[in-house]
């Protein structure tokens, strides 16, 4: 299985959300469905990048460089605006059109993300791709005019044109091939090395964290070299984060996390992205700083542009709530979740049979996660705190959480009733979506059986069921934030503690910590398990 650094990319939703691509991945704001129409401004905090282009207008060079910097932070919409401005300032310059060709299609992202989207939904061609293709053709055309493009620029344009060729068997591979040609002639070209690294990084597998393809490690090597050659290039640090994520050496990206957010201070994704590495490596407090910083920045952009959308903000604040929850900060997690729950879904989203990626839906899930992880059984039963959602998937989760709540409060019959409602809502899900049960809800069903057994006095059986559920949960597709509320191993460990089985509890809590390093709930449980077994706490770490 490939490592998947994806925000709520729910593979089980392929049929329903294929049409929404690329919204299915909210980790980067999607490209504009329509070409940006308002003029660009030179903005602070974009990061400093320079690629000399053939132009008669120095202002065009400035906007081109800004677009390039925005491209390297995956801000396709603003990058396209900057490139358009450069093109308007110098209509004869081909490289601004190269820039549009690079970003307008919305597929300037790590190759492993492209692989995942393709495997989940098949190759999609969004309407915006037409702009990218037209721009590639324009760049090619302009570059043929005498004196309008250097050989190097022509090679960059040839690479982009190869990717945008509608008849290409695999445009991404064609792009890589052209980049290698360019680098054979210009081996020190930083931009081309960066582009190549992004397009060959294929990620790491789970659970063994091995490279998926040779490109995974080639990209790492390219980027390690660039860290020395171009230490202030924001793209280098950004791509290091993506190239190292999910590997055994993810911590090696820590310096780039720090540097990237220093170099790019005004792009939400740039501020947000280090939080992924921090959360993977147990630095929850730093993850919180990344996500909260990105949220503050993004709110400013949202105020200025009514077409900004709220999907990326939803992902970012959902992850913020998750980080708070794993860090053990209940009130903060609830506050973050509530911010998102206040967002309204648009009419099309409301009418959808199944949807998890809206800001509102992400807030609701973050609330449910927090309440369950902190075992706030009374709050779960409070309709105001965790209201019915009105969509089968979320309402199934709600009945599940309520069943857990009743079971843990000792109300076995009420728990069984919620369990029945969970099943009837799952039937509604299947009827409305024409799909089978999502994997994570199958795990939820397994976990619930464990709680019911424990509540009925069959603790041994309950523990066994919970550990089975835990194994299933660890096999789920990995996403960030996770779409299972919290590691089931946390629950199994607590039950084992109640059964005075500290060895079992220790094993379970360590399993949870392996999944989510420094998970405060598991740390607390591990302390208790070690204390119960008479081992010194220090031995646990």
């Amino acid at each position, binding site marked *: 299985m490939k490592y998947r650094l994806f925000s709520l990319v729910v593979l089980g939703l392929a049929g329903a959300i294929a049409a929404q691509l690329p919204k299915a991945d909210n980790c980067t704001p999607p490209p*504009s469905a*329509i070409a940006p129409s308002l003029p660009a401004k030179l903005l602070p905090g974009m990061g400093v990048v320079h690629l000399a282009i053939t132009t008669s207008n120095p202002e065009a060079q400035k906007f081109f460089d800004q677009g390039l910097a925005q491209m390297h932070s995956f801000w396709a919409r603003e990058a396209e605006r900057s490139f358009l401005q450069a093109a308007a300032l110098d209509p004869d310059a081909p490289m601004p059109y190269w820039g549009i060709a690079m970003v307008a299609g919305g597929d300037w992202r790590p190759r492993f993300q492209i692989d995942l989207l393709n495997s989940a939904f098949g190759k999609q061609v969004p309407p915006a791709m037409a702009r990218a293709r037209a721009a590639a053709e324009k760049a090619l055309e302009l570059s043929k005019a005498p004196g309008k493009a250097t050989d190097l620029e022509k090679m960059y344009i040839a690479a982009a044109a190869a990717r945008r060729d509608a008849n290409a068997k695999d445009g991404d591979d064609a792009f890589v091939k052209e980049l290698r040609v360019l680098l054979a002639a210009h081996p020190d070209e930083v931009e081309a090395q960066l582009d190549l690294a992004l397009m060959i990084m294929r990620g790491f597998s789970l659970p063994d964290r091995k490279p998926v393809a040779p490109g995974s490690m080639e990209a790492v090597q390219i980027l390690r070299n660039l860290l020395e050659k171009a230490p202030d290039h924001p793209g280098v640090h950004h791509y290091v984060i993506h190239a190292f994520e999910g590997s055994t050496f993810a911590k090696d990206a820590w310096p780039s996390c720090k540097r990237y957010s220093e170099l790019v201070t005004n792009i939400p994704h740039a501020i947000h992205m280090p939080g992924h590495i921090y959360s993977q490596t147990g630095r929850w407090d730093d993850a919180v700083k990344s996500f909260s910083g990105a949220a503050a920045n993004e709110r400013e952009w949202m105020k200025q542009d009514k077409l900004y*959308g709220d999907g990326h903000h939803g992902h970012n604040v959902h992850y913020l709530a998750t980080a708070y929850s794993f860090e053990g900060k209940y009130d903060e997690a609830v506050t973050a979740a509530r911010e998102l729950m206040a967002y309204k879904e*648009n*009419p*099309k989203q409301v*009418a*959808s049979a199944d949807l998890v990626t809206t800001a509102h839906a992400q807030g609701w899930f973050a609330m449910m996660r927090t309440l369950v992880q902190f075992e706030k059984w009374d709050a779960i039963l409070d309709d105001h705190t965790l209201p019915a959602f009105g969509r089968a998937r979320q309402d199934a989760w709600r009945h599940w959480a309520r069943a857990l709540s009743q079971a843990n409060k000792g109300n076995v019959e009420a728990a069984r009733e919620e369990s029945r409602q969970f099943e009837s809502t799952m039937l509604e899900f299947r009827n409305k979506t024409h799909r089978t049960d999502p994997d994570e809800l199958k795990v939820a069903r397994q976990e619930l059986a464990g709680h019911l057994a424990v509540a009925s006095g069959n603790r041994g059986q309950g523990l066994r069921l919970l550990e089975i559920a835990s194994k299933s949960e660890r096999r789920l597709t990995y996403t960030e934030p996770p779409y299972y509320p919290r590691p089931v191993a946390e629950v199994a460990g607590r039950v084992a503690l109640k059964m005075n089985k500290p060895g079992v509890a220790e094993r379970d809590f360590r399993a949870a910590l392996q999944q989510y390093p420094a998970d405060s709930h598991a740390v607390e449980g591990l302390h208790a398990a070690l204390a119960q077994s008479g081992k010194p706490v220090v031995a646990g770490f």
Partner: protein
Amino acid sequence: MRRPVTPFLRHSGTPSAVLLLAAIASAGATQAKSYPVDGIVVALDPAGRTILVSHRPIPKYMDAMTMPFRVENAIELQDLHPGVRIEFELVVSRSSSVARNIRKMAVADVEIPAPREKLGIRDMVPDFQLIDQQGHPVRFSEFRGRVAAVNFIYTRCPLPDVCPRLAANFALLQRRFTGRDLVLLSITVDPDYDTPAVLAEYAKRWAANYSVWRFLTGDVAKVAAEFGEVYWSDEGSIGHNSTTSIVGRDGRLAAIVEGSSYRVDQLSDLIARQLGEGSK
């Protein structure tokens, strides 16, 4: 080229119109045959248990045209209105034909609930004032006595099969009904961006004749809701459904066509009927 149109309602009680009779005769079989039909309702005659439908070509049977169909089950007429897209089975025997199993067709992947304010067929359209592409205030009541076709677009719409298609259809209507009492109104769902100047440029692109085709902006929320148009800000675009409404000379809502996949001939048929050209 005008489409064949058969008489209807004014000659109600004669569902066996000439073309239908010809079709039945051409079936020439002793056993009934069934053909799938996809069309837009132009008019309804519940008493005569008949619908007038502007239909697409019926494979292996007949070309696209407007014709009346007798309905087997009158209950199926209850939810229909002029402009609605339907599909049904046309069952043709030696001596008769009926429309069976009439179903409204979904026009979008996700059915978006209509706004509460949405007008019903035959409701009087409340007057409204907006600004046209020349910056002039326009009141809807100014067009009383003319048939009006109203759609909703926005100039930045990137999807060729939505707003550009709707605009292209109106451009064809403008040509087809030259000199008739028809006014075309395209109301933007992106009024912040679609200023009169932007709309004027857009109108130029479609060669819009100002006396026939107005592009309107301003406070469009109320009028959009009344015509059943739903729109919202999305990720870098504006999401919206597509409604095209026909308003009669009397200012009452005569038909609503949902979606953008209708054929312009079908919209023409709805307009021609309001212009009183249905029996030509």
